[in-house]
């Protein structure tokens, strides 16, 4: 198993911690993991993204140009990453922010109303968790318990009261797929 994922949006959408949650969960499951953020001034008002690799082999290079999965949270990121998805790969994207959906037809596309779903759960911040849920539904490589363990590590202590709503979001995300 070797899963190469990019998560992209703009700074402030929480793409980095979303990736970290992936990576931590992978580590919990004893996978080899690497997490690589974009960094620096790109992040000022522009795009932010991170790459997560989950693998059962040693990871040679954390810097990759092709991905199995792209999780896309805004239009500029779509423009940047659509072409980098491997044939037969998948793109999960937030529905409301994407004007022009992907045009490739050699990949699977999932248009997720995560923003709306988050608002219906009365918490904008859990949009990420909803998408993470959708991803795990599509790619059953991480157990929910691992993800929640990971989230505990990633979330600062003072936000631990948000764990239940996040768990809810995770399931909400899964539902978006299996419905």
């Amino acid at each position, binding site marked *: 198993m070797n899963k190469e994922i990019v998560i992209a949006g*703009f700074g402030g959408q929480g793409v980095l911690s979303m990736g970290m949650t992936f990576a931590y969960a992978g580590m919990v499951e004893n996978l080899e993991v690497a997490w690589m953020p974009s960094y620096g001034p790109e992040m000022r008002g522009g795009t932010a993204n991170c790459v997560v690799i989950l693998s059962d082999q040693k990871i040679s290079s954390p810097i990759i140009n092709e991905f199995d999965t792209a999780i896309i949270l805004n239009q500029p990121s779509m423009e940047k990453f659509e072409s980098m998805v491997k044939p037969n790969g998948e793109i999960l994207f937030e529905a*409301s*922010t994407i004007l022009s959906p992907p045009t490739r037809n050699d990949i699977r596309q999932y248009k997720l109303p995560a*923003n709306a779903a988050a608002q219906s759960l009365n918490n904008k911040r859990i949009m990420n968790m909803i998408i993470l849920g959708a991803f795990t539904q599509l790619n059953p490589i991480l157990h929910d318990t691992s993800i929640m363990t990971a989230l505990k590590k990633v979330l600062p202590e003072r936000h631990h009261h948000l764990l239940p709503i996040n768990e809810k979001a995770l399931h909400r995300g899964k539902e978006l797929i299996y419905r």
Partner: protein
Amino acid sequence: MAKIKGHVTIRTENCKGCDLCVHECPQDSLQLSTALNTSGYPYAVLVNDTCTGCTNCALVCPEAVITVFREGKKKPIAILSHVTENITVDITS
């Protein structure tokens, strides 16, 4: 009403939803959208016709996306009309 009639146009695609114009408008004429533009930001919209063209919003707008208009002395009165832009989001899976 002695107030001068004013109007603003906003290039919403370049708006970053910082909310500063909304707070700076003495007429409460601006609001942020709940929908997002393609960069992923909510954006400012003019929501009523009480704008006086005071330029406050434009002066604080970091993105310089607001243009302000004001009724000139000799110019005819601006005709304002309501336009609704509904954005509907579908779930696709």
